[in-house]
């Protein structure tokens, strides 16, 4: 049972912005609804108006252009992303991350932009967007902004978005030519779960450009810049990986909750980081067991 609200389905960004302006803080945008409808039901939000953006055609762009990168519009679903060949080829970290979100039925409805706008610490797509240095493009009555994803999240379920501002798309620049990457997600089951820990790792530039980002280990998804720096210097690759693992652990601050304890999460950060880097950097794993 949902509380009462007014439903609007604008057909242009302009109309949507008009409505956002009209209702101010009392408006909520609706994409796939897989977060919003649950929040409505649980009375976590009680907007006066719900603005469905799915009828705005210009928001459904999904386009990769060599050199310019990948643009994902605000209403593009996970299913569309998984089916779009260039994503799998050029942005494997994103593809793998998207593949882990919820279940297939939900992925046919839920959107990537919805995921980052909810700004849950567990947002599975955020680490991937972080390692690709994605840029969030917004629109508002006063014009739009281009916000680097690293500056987008400000706290648990909080973003830099202002009243009257909406996300139009997310752009992932062309990745480095030799980029490889992966997304590892710890779950309580094999089938479907929120991330206990999510690790995105990208390796490029012959192993000098390494990028690491995490979900579910801090109030916001985080990038581990200090750990990344290790790889710019020379030295033994195994030692560098161990150093990076340590620095990655130092850059996260997980909590204990009903899904996992802090200790387990820290351990997962360690082994997932190590496993991902070993694999991407072509290092034989040392069996420690």
């Amino acid at each position, binding site marked *: *049972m949902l509380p009462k609200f007014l439903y609007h389905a604008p057909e242009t960004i302009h109309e949507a912005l008009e409505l956002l302006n009209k209702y101010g803080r009392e408006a909520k945008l609706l994409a796939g609804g897989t977060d919003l409808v649950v929040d409505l039901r649980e009375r976590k939000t009680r907007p006066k108006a719900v603005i469905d953006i799915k009828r705005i055609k210009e928001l459904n762009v999904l386009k990769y252009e060599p050199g310019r990168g990948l643009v994902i519009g605000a209403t593009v679903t996970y299913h569309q992303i998984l089916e779009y060949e260039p994503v799998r080829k050029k942005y494997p970290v994103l593809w793998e991350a998207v593949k882990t979100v919820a279940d297939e039925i939900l992925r046919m409805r839920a959107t990537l932009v919805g995921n980052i706008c909810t700004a849950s610490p567990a947002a599975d797509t955020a680490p991937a967007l972080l390692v690709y240095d994605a840029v969030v493009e917004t629109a508002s009555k006063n014009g739009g902004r281009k916000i680097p994803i690293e500056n987008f999240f400000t706290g648990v379920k909080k973003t830099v978005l202002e009243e009257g501002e909406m996300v139009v798309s997310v752009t992932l620049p062309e990745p480095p030519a030799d980029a490889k990457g992966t997304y590892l997600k710890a779950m309580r*089951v*094999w*089938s*479907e779960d929120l991330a206990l820990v999510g690790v995105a790792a990208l390796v490029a530039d012959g192993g000098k450009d390494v990028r690491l980002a995490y979900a579910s280990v801090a109030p916001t998804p985080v990038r581990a810049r200090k750990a990344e720096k290790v790889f710019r210097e020379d030295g033994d690759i195994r030692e560098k990986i161990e150093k990076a693992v340590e620095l990655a652990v130092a850059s996260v601050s997980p909590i204990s909750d*009903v899904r996992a304890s802090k200790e*387990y999460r820290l351990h997962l950060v360690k082994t997932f980081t190590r496993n991902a880097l070993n694999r991407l950097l072509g290092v034989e794993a040392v069996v420690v*067991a």
Partner: protein
Amino acid sequence: MKNFREDLKYVGKPVPRVDSYEKILGVAEYTGDIELPGMLHTKLVLSPYAHAKIKAIHTEKARKASGVVAVAVGDDFPFRVGLYVNDRNVLARKKVRWAGEPVVAVVAETLEQAYEAAELIEVEYEPLQPVLDVRDALKPGAPLVHEELGEYAHSPAFHPIPGTNIASRFTLKKGDVELGFKQSDVILENEFMMPQVSHVPLETHTSIGQYMPDGKIKIWTSAQSPFTVRHILSVSLGVPEHKISVYVPYIGGGFGGKAGINFEPLVVMLSKMAGGRPVKLELTREEQFITAPVRQGLYAKLKTGVKRSGEIMAEKILYVYDAGAYADYGVNVGRAAGYSCTGPYYVPNVETESLTVYTNHPWGTAFRGFGHFEFLWAIERQMDLVARELGMDPVEFRLKNALLPGKTTPTGEVLREDAGRIDECIRAVASRIDWGKKPVAAAGKPRGKGIAALWKAPAMPPNASSAAFIKFNEDGTAELLLGITEIGQGAETALAQIAAEELGLPVEKIKVVPFRHTDVSPYSWQTVASRGLFMDGRAVQMAARDAKNQIFDIASQVLRVSKEDLVLSDERVHVRGRPEVGLELRQLVNGYVYPNGNVVGGPVIGRGFYSAARLTYLDPETGQGYPALKWTFGAHAVEVEVDPDTGMVKVLKLVSAFDIGKAINPAIVLGQAYGGALQSMSLGLLEGYFYDEKGRMLNPNLTDYKIARASDIPEEHEVIIIENPQLDGPFGARGIGELSMLSVETAIANALYDAIGIDLKNLPITAEYIWKHIQAKKEKIPVEAVT
């Protein structure tokens, strides 16, 4: 021991379920689908405290809200309900006993209005110290959950201890346990635990009640046991049973949670307040978790004495069941565990104490595998631990102590010759898993094998009974009326097959009436305890034979031969040896009409019943006696793979064997085996009520109360059906419903020792819990320190 008919036409065949079509078309009726003229809707206000005094309830604003018809508080209903112990309030009175207990019910014209008004209710509480652990509940001076325990009426089979939190104490003494320990070479003591878990029926509890001013009561409800609902309500309200009608359509999963009596008294009383308009309550998923009853948790302590040669000499057992706030049904879980306490093994000397203990947790009730899932976790882990201590193979150790026919059970019953064979089950699964052959680890992921056995008898009063009617129609087709409900287990289909076989009538020509209505359905005590196929099956057999006898009465007059010389087959009655001399069934079942208009006989209605034979109450001190209608045995073996980085377990292969006497419908048996096994795995590996320090459930939704999905099932599952017939079972059958969900998680835990050398003692064995044990082993931390 194959002395049953082999030439069966309908029994033993995978005939399609009789409820298939309605369910596949989406037209099957469930309680939540029912709409009645003038129906009102309910929203509950729940306690946020685990234990608190109710100081004041402010309902004025809600009463004035639009659409509100009635607002009820506990004192409006000054009576208690209960199956075995009469301890439950309809709405909390004076104090709340768990976080989630209903305190106020708001009834309105629409559900939306009920929600809105419920938000206007204010309740003032004075928090009391809660009891949140069964072990604490037993300590002297622990806060009492039920101060008035001494005043509660209860069945003579149970033993509450007033002034404590013990809702019932069951004790058992067989042989001389001290002597047994003296004769033992090795003695091993261990503790085990499991938390409370939820049935998670996908249809939440739903009930509609109507209490008309003339004193008639009507109930539409998703209840497993319509007759129990009627009986308890009758006793609690003092309304005669013929004034109460309980209607049960299809049920969207029960697993024991919808047995006994639940929210029916509430909706009935709300209807009375609303002047007799029907009142509906449908729990939300969150309410299903925190307000509906759950499976009780268990703390177990086992002390086992064995000879070097492997014979178990003595077993001292303590089971403490976490009943939560009310134990009206839960006390029988403690009792059932008490009399089955050793598992399927012969132990000459046993001393058992099985306590059902109140805490400020959600209230416990029946759950598929009734007490056995819980204690078999302890027993079957202990079997492996003892075997290891002896340096003996776990399969060999189990076989050495197997409870075979001729040996005595814990209650002193000599296991009958046709009771089924635990040894055959164990051997079958061991062979199919290639026991003894060490699996090879792949990609750094260790593998291991494990085994666990199981047994169970129905937990029910010694006088439980079932009845059935078979009603013939003019064209020779028939209706089968049952008292047992269809909760998905396939009872309707299997019982139709039994009727078909007895009557020589194709299953398609028998309609199982797809609802239960206490006004017209024959009696059946409860749909629980895997007793349905056996007891209702026997009742159906008797009803079919009764109908056949009536048909022969008519035919013998018309054909002028003695009844003994008649044969019924292929919808025709003919004279033995002379198939050409006979009559079609349809010419007989409504009375035979001669060409001149004379008629002999009349409409044929067969009636049958079955009452459990020769069961007794158990001795209150020693627990000796006859509790078991039948024993059913089984075993599982698994091969698992562990990811040591995460603790995630994959079940590569599961083999299950059950000696069910006879598979009346092999497709349904498979469904029970697959479904039960996954429930067992899901409960054991994933599920549990997790509470904060104040006793509030932290995971009351399906996001954080994980249950198994399609990608979580074992990669392979082989089911072996063993058919040593039970001579008094219908066509030799015993039933399987609950058996399949016992011990799978224990086999997995045993396999984890084989794979990585960790010993798990608490459920659920989540990936994180396994990982912690791997860590503890590496760092040489004692396992007791792992939480």
